[in-house]
């Protein structure tokens, strides 16, 4: 297939060989699970269980709140022991509302409704079942998948993202090798649900076994499995679309604007499980890796499992871990508390050594423009950072701050070790806060205006009523006076 060029991009050291050869292995069910109510973009789910209640594996624990939300199910059977807070899988380490579930060790499923011929289902039924199964994008963005299906009906091209361009991560690589048939069925179900005309699977060429497995599974189907050059950030939505179709998403738009829908390959597996076997999304594949981990591996982990259990299963540390990261090293988040739970969007648990991080004190920018060459979007990171440094947000926006995909390529290549992408995320946060304040002020102003208008209206009505009453009284008086006059005459 004809591929298009990616602008910029970098070649970080892959280090996928640490875990790539380890087949997926199920992590034993932990004694206690902490299941956050927000594991997706959008509103947190609403609990439908009570403390002390016994639940079965796959039972609904919390329902979606509105369209941009997702349901959450019990990862195993047991008893609900708490509806409270747990530490968020986020650098802030703040508390998030969550459900605590103590496993009974029996893993008893609820009654599952299997579907013999899933392709008889209508697109609406598929998207309803995907929503009911609590499926979100497993590539890391955790956007509710059903909503994406609903918004993308009738797209020309369905792209399945098997890029996995983040270093270290091999979870998608392994799932494509080991569960290609189910993934392919999931892909066809998604294609059926959105009535896509063509289906492309993009896999980086550093995963030859996965490509071979997917190509074998795609035989006798119209799905095209394509090897893409290994380059970061190939697995980013905008970039994979550009490389496979040559199209660009208009600024501020969505893939559907150019007739494209992108899903992760692991999401396709979850869709297949939900539609064909009736299983909700309660587990995912997580790569446990990094120079500090004794036996890097790929684990099938129940949502809500504390990160420490994964590290212990992988044999613990062989070297002191300088940094614990959830996700990949390029865009993942540092975690300070290893008790945080694995959530639906957790692709990796990394324990990195000082040497792997390669951190150094930031130095002055020498305008070498390595960042300009690395940027896959065509931005000028050095200029944007200079504007943000002087709190000139509008200057940074004019240079394309809102188009930044936060891939971190600029920070990675900077010889001065300037945390460029940190500047951009900080500025984006500031911008959001400013916009929110502005909206608030505008709505306050609108309310105040409405109030004074309302008061004026009431005053007017009162005055009118008073005038009417006065006129009526005067008319009455005049009539009475006239009567008196006639009587006198």
């Amino acid at each position, binding site marked *: 297939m004809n591929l298009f060029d990616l602008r910029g991009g970098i070649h970080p050291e892959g280090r996928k060989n640490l875990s790539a050869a380890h087949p997926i292995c199920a992590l034993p069910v932990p004694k206690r699970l902490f299941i956050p109510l927000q594991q997706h973009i959008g509103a947190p789910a609403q609990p439908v269980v009570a403390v002390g209640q016994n639940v079965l594996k796959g039972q609904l624990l919390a329902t979606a709140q509105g369209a941009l939300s997702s349901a959450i199910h019990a990862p195993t059977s047991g008893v609900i022991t708490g509806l409270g807070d747990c530490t968020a899988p986020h650098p802030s380490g703040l508390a998030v509302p969550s459900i605590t579930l103590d496993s009974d060790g029996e893993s008893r499923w609820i009654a599952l409704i299997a579907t013999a011929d899933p392709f008889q289902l209508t697109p609406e039924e598929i998207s309803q079942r995907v929503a009911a199964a609590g499926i979100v994008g497993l590539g890391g963005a955790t956007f509710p998948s059903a909503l994406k299906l609903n918004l993308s009906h009738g797209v020309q091209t369905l792209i399945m993202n098997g890029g996995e361009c983040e270093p270290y991560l091999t979870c998608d690589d392994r799932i494509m090798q080991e569960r290609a048939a189910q993934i392919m069925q999931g892909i066809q179900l998604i294609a059926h649900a959105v009535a896509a005309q063509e289906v492309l699977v993009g896999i980086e060429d550093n995963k030859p076994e996965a490509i071979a497995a997917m190509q074998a599974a795609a035989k006798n189907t119209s799905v095209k499995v394509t090897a893409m050059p290994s380059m970061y950030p190939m697995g980013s939505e905008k970039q994979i679309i550009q490389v496979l179709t040559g199209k660009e998403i208009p600024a*501020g738009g969505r893939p559907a604007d150019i007739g494209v829908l992108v899903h992760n390959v692991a999401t396709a597996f979850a869709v297949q499980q939900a539609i064909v076997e009736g299983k909700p999304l309660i587990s995912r594949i997580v790569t446990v890796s990094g120079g500090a981990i004794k036996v890097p591996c790929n684990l099938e982990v129940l949502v809500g499992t504390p990160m420490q259990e994964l590290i212990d299963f992988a044999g613990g540390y062989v070297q002191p871990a300088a940094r*614990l990261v959830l996700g990949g090293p390029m865009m993942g988040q*540092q975690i300070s508390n290893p008790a945080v739970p694995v959530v639906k969007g957790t692709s990796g648990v990394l324990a990195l050594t000082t040497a792997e991080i390669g951190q150094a004190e930031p130095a002055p920018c020498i305008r070498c423009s390595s960042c300009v*060459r690395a940027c896959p979007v065509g931005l000028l990171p050095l200029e944007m950072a200079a504007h943000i440094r002087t709190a000139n947000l509008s200057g940074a926006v004019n240079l394309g701050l809102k188009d930044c995909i936060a891939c971190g390529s600029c920070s990675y290549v900077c010889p*001065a070790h300037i945390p460029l992408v940190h500047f951009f995320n900080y500025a984006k946060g500031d911008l959001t806060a400013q916009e929110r304040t502005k909206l608030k002020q505008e709505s306050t102003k609108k309310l105040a205006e409405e109030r004074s208008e309302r008061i004026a209206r009431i005053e007017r009505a009162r005055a009118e009523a008073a005038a009417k009453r006065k006129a009526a009284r005067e008319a009455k008086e005049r009539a009475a006076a006239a009567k008196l006059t006639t009587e006198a005459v």
Partner: protein
Amino acid sequence: MNPIAHSPHAHAPITLSKVMMTVMMALIPATLYGFWLYGWSAVMLWMISIFAAIASEALVVRWQGRGVKTALLDGSGVLTAWLLAISLPPTAPWWIAVLGSVFAVTICKQVFGGLGQNVFNPAMAARVMLLISFPLEMTTWVSPVDGMASASVLGHVKTELTRGISMDTSLVGHFSMLDGLVGNRIGSMGETAAILLLLGGVFLIFRRIITWHIPVAMMLGVAVPALLFHSIDSTHYASPLVHLLSGGLILGAFFIATDPVTSPNTAMGQLIFGAGCGLMTWIIRTWGGYPEGVAFAVLMLNAGTPIIDHYVKPRIYGRDRKGVALPVKKG
């Protein structure tokens, strides 16, 4: 556990000092050749330049109340002094080197705010300051062959032209392509050996410290007008070869004009900048008062860098060249 850091949690194995060291490595062959040609006086000049740069930078940084160690460890001051030293006449007196180095790192760099803040290339600004202030010391050349005082190729043809002697005649016995390539000609300490400088330049491109845009554009910027005018009137206009292999053109194209701080940051901007440097060099050499124009040309284009960067920006993904979002095209 370390304090919370933002992603990425990995970094390319590069630092500022590694960048500076790589450029210095690329300069070693041409510099050693200069030492070999001119002997101990050249070595001393080089050492004095670097020492003066380190000492004055340390002093100024201390005055500013900044960390002396971090400011010196990046190696940018040493590199500036090195570039200045190899663009001085090998027999220049020691105080020329001291003055130039101190001027370069303090007035041209630290006064602007230190590394990365200067508008003009410090080595070239210092060289031009010296040339204007001490024209005699800065234009006294000796031949590397016999050690006799002599004039450079560009200086010689310029003088001869004013005496009405045509260029075809004046160049005979004064320019040979082979001498120009190996550096067996009159000139600054490290600017003459075209082959060794090219070697260093290609090494820098290969190591991705610089890109090909500025050097290629600058050489074309000289060669294209030279070819045009030479083919029209060879008695008044030197051939592209003479231009490329004399003065400090190769040194300037690969090591001076490519200074990241003072050059544009997009590929297109760098092409414009490089071509401008080349064209200005050719204009100054051809019609200007000075026989050599690389330093002046680079400084002029340094001043133009902010304008080039203002107008030349890459197209952003999902937008057209004007920054307007691309149209929505479903299906």
